[in-house]
């Protein structure tokens, strides 16, 4: 009798990471794409920050937060894209059914996409942080230990959104692919990336505070402008993130089951 395959296998996760690493390695446009947009964003906001820093008063103060905001936004946005891209690659290559009939468990599949999101982020954003230091004298790493809290919270949100998008694409096919690219832009105004939460009307502030990145961007501004680390904001973001991840995981499993009910897993592809 052949023993059942283990319920959880690190080796299967590494197999999936290797699969995506082979793909990245073989395709320079994919590698370029990882760096291109964070670089463009950094250059644009860097010049704006330089210009505003020459002004006086509140404008000059606000300017100090722009590059930090744009780099943190890129962590959020690229984290989700990195996750979703790994999933979409399976759809584009019509490989999903092969994976679904293999011993790869959904949790292992998700963890491999999380790992790829981290790898893509390191390739795409880390070099840009050094370029920001070189061109605009902005030391992103100077945010110190707080950066770890910002980074972790933003990544958790990005994975929750990535998981939800993957479920929607699974359920609705590649017709829902556009959501993957655009869903995060809804967070751009709502999470107050470039301005304080009190800028929003009070009814919208309540919605904004239910989104974990809001606490991160607010915490970043407090750190840059007042040199104070607000642990309470990070804990609030973490609690919200845990709830969001749990909800996204539940939604992903439900949507996967729905796609099996619809019989769409056999026909996914370009």
């Amino acid at each position, binding site marked *: 009798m*052949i023993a*059942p*395959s*283990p*319920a959880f*296998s690190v*080796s*299967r996760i*590494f*197999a*999936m990471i*290797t*699969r995506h690493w*082979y*793909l990245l390695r*073989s*395709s320079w446009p994919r590698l370029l794409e990882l760096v291109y947009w964070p670089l463009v964003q950094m250059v644009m906001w860097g010049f704006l920050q330089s210009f505003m820093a020459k002004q006086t008063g509140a404008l000059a103060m606000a300017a100090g937060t722009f590059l930090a905001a744009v780099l943190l936004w890129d962590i959020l946005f690229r984290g989700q894209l990195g996750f979703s891209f790994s999933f979409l*690659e399976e759809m584009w*290559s*019509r*490989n999903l*059914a*092969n*994976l*679904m*009939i*293999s*011993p*790869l*468990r959904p949790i292992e599949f998700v963890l491999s996409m999380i790992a790829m999101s981290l790898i893509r982020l390191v390739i795409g954003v880390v070099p840009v942080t050094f370029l920001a230091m070189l061109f605009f004298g902005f030391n992103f790493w100077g945010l110190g230990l707080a950066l770890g809290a910002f980074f972790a919270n933003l990544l958790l949100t990005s994975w929750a959104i990535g998981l939800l998008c993957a479920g929607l694409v699974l359920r609705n096919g590649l017709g829902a692919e556009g959501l993957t690219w655009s869903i995060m832009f809804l967070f751009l105004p709502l999470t107050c990336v470039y301005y304080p939460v009190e800028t929003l009307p009070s009814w919208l502030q309540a919605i904004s505070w239910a989104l974990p990145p809001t606490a991160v961007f607010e915490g970043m501004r407090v750190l840059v402008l007042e040199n104070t680390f607000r642990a309470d904001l990070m804990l609030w973001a973490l609690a919200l993130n845990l709830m969001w991840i749990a909800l996204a995981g539940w939604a992903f499993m439900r949507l996967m*089951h729905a796609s*099996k*009910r*619809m*019989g769409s*897993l*056999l*026909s996914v*592809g370009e």
Partner: protein
Amino acid sequence: MNMSVPPPAIEADRLTKHYGESVAVDGISFSIPAGSVTGLLGGNGAGKTTTIGMIMSLVVPTSGRVSVLGHDMAHDAYRVLHRMNFESPYVDLPHRLTVRQNLSVFGRLYGVKNVSERIARLASDLDLEDFVDRASGKLSAGQKTRVALAKALINEPDILILDEPTASLDPDTADWIRSHLERYRANRNATILLASHNMSEVERLCDRVLMMKRGKIVDDDAPAKLIARYGRHNLEEVFLDIARGRGAANKEAAE
């Protein structure tokens, strides 16, 4: 001593699948013993692919049950998926990865002990050696089919499910694939479920044929017996009789 009978390789019990108002599979029941090669035949829309999807746990049945090696595929699939594999021209491997990279990824997903050795063996058996380091997307149709078969055999499955394994292949390559499947079945005592529109392929490979029409199994027998019962010369004529609704009349005349 436990004298219990081993479970069938694949067993369906009143298996049904509805897509909204449309009935894709309509309460079919069958049992496939271990070590046999069974053909699943039927015209387009007969329910073959949906049946295969339910056997592999890619499709959730509306009602009924399908089990593989005694495990209910709706609830217990992970206990048996590592002993199964699948090949279909409608499923692909990542194009940018080389053949070796793709096989290596799947080898590790299936927990194959010595993946490099297994790939070398498959490359030799399936004549992949000349292009094993070429990108999978740059292969000819015949080469792709052989690679897909190598992926399906990477874990030496006890249950091999093939959906039109020789579609779009030239006769020489198709014959070559069939010979390999015959050898694999003989060497491993593997159970093969084969959906195909190629009747000569089914006649050559299969011990038994399940004929499907509009979601139901309308006949079930060995190819030679079906041909005799319908009074025909080959399975293609039997298939046409069933597809065109002449099945009952011909059977009566032959009997």
